[in-house]
């Protein structure tokens, strides 16, 4: 650090108040990122305070990692440096909400559960439900582009973020997008921020598109006898007039981990609409399941909240490919599990080609990089897909690149963008693709 620590802490305390600085070593250890313990944690109370903090950090060349609820800090390469963790939990206000507009502007630190509670009386919701996402912060979910079963109908944060207030590396408070549901004024800056993992700017406020809470919802677990049957059922489902709002595919391990009924493989689906349509589509769904030797059983809403547990593993991989290859990649995961003597739970997003693999029980993690991540990644990248190590102990992260390879020319533009907006590498240095 360029200034002596006490002087720096005094300057930080002046900006956010001494009670919002954390300096005791035991407390700081809880904010470690991939084993790197920050020198201080600051909890700003407004976007302006974030701006002043970052201006100070930029002047002192301090490395800053933003943090929402802290549930996804495992994502990304180990940071090159870490001086300060910016904890955004105090930015939890609902700044604007006119139910008739179905738009809400909220602080980045607000949790999904908190937002949901605010919207529920108006029978509206934010259609983003990453597994185990209730305690997660809006800003964190956007910065990591996390999504869940509702993606099947509503897409991801990319489709739901209308406007964004963020702080650039030099402390400049900046706004992009609009507060209305439709706008093409200027560049789509919100899209640039979604999934950028706090490397271009720190999201402090989000304007979100909301959806009406459907009048009726029912959920089913469609158990299927084999991966082939699941693939056929899935293809028929997306090609049918059925319009589920949520869909997720789980294998036997995933079902067991989530505490759901045992099946060789199953789809968890829900249909949300007016009651008559839910009933009619439900019957059609059950019939379609029978055609594919499947069994559709009604399940409670709580089945969905169990999904988070299914992916609570020490290692979590996220593989994205052509949607039609979903089951093929799941099978590749199962084959590897047998070969390596580890347990793998598969949780996949049908229609989007995303397969999450949660891995338990590997004694030698480097082994996992060599024998699981690298060959699987090579195969999926050869088809234009990707494999990201979402969560892993730092040894595994170091033994196999977290993000995989990016086309060098595309990466060179990303590098130009990063160096334009964060030339001194203040924001989450090294955490993103290609060491950005």
């Amino acid at each position: 650090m360029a200034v002596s620590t006490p002087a720096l802490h005094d300057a930080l305390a002046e900006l956010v108040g001494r009670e919002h600085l954390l300096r005791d070593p035991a407390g700081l250890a809880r904010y470690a990122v991939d084993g790197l313990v920050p020198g201080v944690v600051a909890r700003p109370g407004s976007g302006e305070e974030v701006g002043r903090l970052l201006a100070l950090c930029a002047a002192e060349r301090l490395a800053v990692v933003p943090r929402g609820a802290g549930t996804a800090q495992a994502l990304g390469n180990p940071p090159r440096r870490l001086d300060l963790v910016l904890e955004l939990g105090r930015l939890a206000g609902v700044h604007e909400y006119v139910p008739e507009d179905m738009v809400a502007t909220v602080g980045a630190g607000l949790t999904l559960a908190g937002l949901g509670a605010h919207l529920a009386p108006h029978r509206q919701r934010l259609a983003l439900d990453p597994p185990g996402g209730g305690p997660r912060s809006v800003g964190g979910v956007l910065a990591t582009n996390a999504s869940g079963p509702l993606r099947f109908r509503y897409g991801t944060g990319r489709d739901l973020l209308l406007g964004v207030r963020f702080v650039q590396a030099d402390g400049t408070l900046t706004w992009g997008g609009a507060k209305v549901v439709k706008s093409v004024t200027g560049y789509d800056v919100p899209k640039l921020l979604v999934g950028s993992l706090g490397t271009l700017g720190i999201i402090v406020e989000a304007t979100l598109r909301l959806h009406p809470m459907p009048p009726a919802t029912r959920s089913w677990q469609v158990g299927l006898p084999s991966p082939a049957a699941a693939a056929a059922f899935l293809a028929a489902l997306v090609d049918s007039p059925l319009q589920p709002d949520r869909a997720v595919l789980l294998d036997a391990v995933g079902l067991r981990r989530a505490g759901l009924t045992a099946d060789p493989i199953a789809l968890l689906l829900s249909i949300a609409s007016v009651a008559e349509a839910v009933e009619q589509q439900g019957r059609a769904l059950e019939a379609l399941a029978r055609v594919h030797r499947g069994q559709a059983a009604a399940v409670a809403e709580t089945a969905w909240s169990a999904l988070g547990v299914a992916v609570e593993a020490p290692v979590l991989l996220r593989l994205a490919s052509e949607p039609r290859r979903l089951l093929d990649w799941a099978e590749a995961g199962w084959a590897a599990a047998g070969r390596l003597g580890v347990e793998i739970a598969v949780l996949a997003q049908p229609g989007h080609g995303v397969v999450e693999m949660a891995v338990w029980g590997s004694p030698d993690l480097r082994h996992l990089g060599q024998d699981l991540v690298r060959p699987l990644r090579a195969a999926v990248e050869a088809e234009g897909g990707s494999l990201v190590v979402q969560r892993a102990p730092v040894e595994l992260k170091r033994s196999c690149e977290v993000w995989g390879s990016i086309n060098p020319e595309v990466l060179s533009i990303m590098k130009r963008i990063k160096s334009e907006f964060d030339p001194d590498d203040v924001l989450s240095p090294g955490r993103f693709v290609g060491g950005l």
Partner: protein
Amino acid sequence: MPLSPQVLRELERIVGAAGLVVSREGLLTYECDMHTFYKGAPEAVVLPESAQQVAEIVRLCRRDRVPIVPRGSGTGLIGGAMAPEGGVMVSMTRMNRIVEIDFANRCATVQPGLINLWLSQATREGGYFFAPDPSSQMVSSIGGNASTNAGGPHCLKYGITVNHILGLEVVTGAGELLRLGGKAHERPGYDLTGVMVGAEGTLGLVTGVVVRLTHLPESVKTILASFSTIEDASETVSAIIRAGIIPAALEMLDEVVIRAIEEGIHAGYPKGAGAVLLIELDGPAAEIDAQAAPIEAICREHLALEIRVARSEEERALLWKGRKEAAGVFGRLTPNWLLQDAVVPRSKLPEIMRELQAIGARHRVVIANVFHAGDGNLHPLICYDDRVPGELERAKHANEDLLHACLRLGGSVTGEHGVGLDKCESLPLQFAEADLNFMARLRRTFDPDSIMNPGKLLPSHPACGEGFRPAARPLPSGTWI
């Protein structure tokens, strides 16, 4: 500055003699888009046949700092596809093929010049369509739709173009030929596809597009509701949204427009009504039947004069023909007009419509309305006659007042048409200097020498706001909004 003979020779070497337009008459076709106020012909038009040719063109232009203006079908409404500084226009009309339809992955790969509607026609038998449906869809290109992030009536339910673009092949202003995104729905790194969509050719040229295909709905219901006043119609829109129903489309037409449509197209809209709502529901049959009842009840509560449900595909098509070709009949209304595309929060619709009428009265101009009411995306058409001294000025004042009113209510300058040359002066109304500066720097990372569509999208450029002169003749029919 005229292009040097050497540059022209090199352009010809890249695209062939048949792909190069340099004659005065030939260039006239390219001097404007559908916003015919802004005129500026390029020095040359090139019609490449491959992405490699596009990349060569950009590298050549970058070497000599020649401005490049991309162009699809030229149906834009913002002066985006015209050349205020001359230079080279790159027209994508020869790159208009469907490369692949991939039903298993529910996507298609197309060249940028492909006409929007052709893709839906080609995928209909397989049970799919391309959801973005700008009113120009029978002539506008998918590359143009992507570059302007085009909307359309059905984006109320299905989202705008960016929600349907999975990947792009682009040539950046730096001359790099890149594939961004693709058939996989996510990939690590910054979302450059998302940034490129809607960039209006200021970051680079789109040479290929991977689009999402959407399953055709099981059933469709189109309802026409007429009202004696625009206030009743506006309150109806707000009430429908408030009830938690999001139709596939929710369009409003006012009395002036209804009359012109009936004289020109005979779509069967009720003459004499103060406003008409065109409401379309699509999806599972049981769902739309259950939604139609409350919608009809809301219409009746707001004193609808008539509620009519299209009984056949022909009736439905006719109702939509009236809406989609509305702008084509404006020639019947007025010799000249200014068109806006501002957006207001949807709860503010009744308020902005009252304000709009007051502004029209204050400046003594007729303002006609046909727009995407469900999104709050207005298309006020401010009528004037440039042969009458002072009318253009009054129209411009009304235009400004209206834009300010929309932004005061928390709106946006443009909902779907884009910024182009037409609206770049207005961006500071919506964005602070820091925000604009961020965008300008973002632009530079793609286009370091500022050759891509200069003078468009951002206000800093001196050409912005200049070149505004009334067209010598009325606007052509066959304009789409």
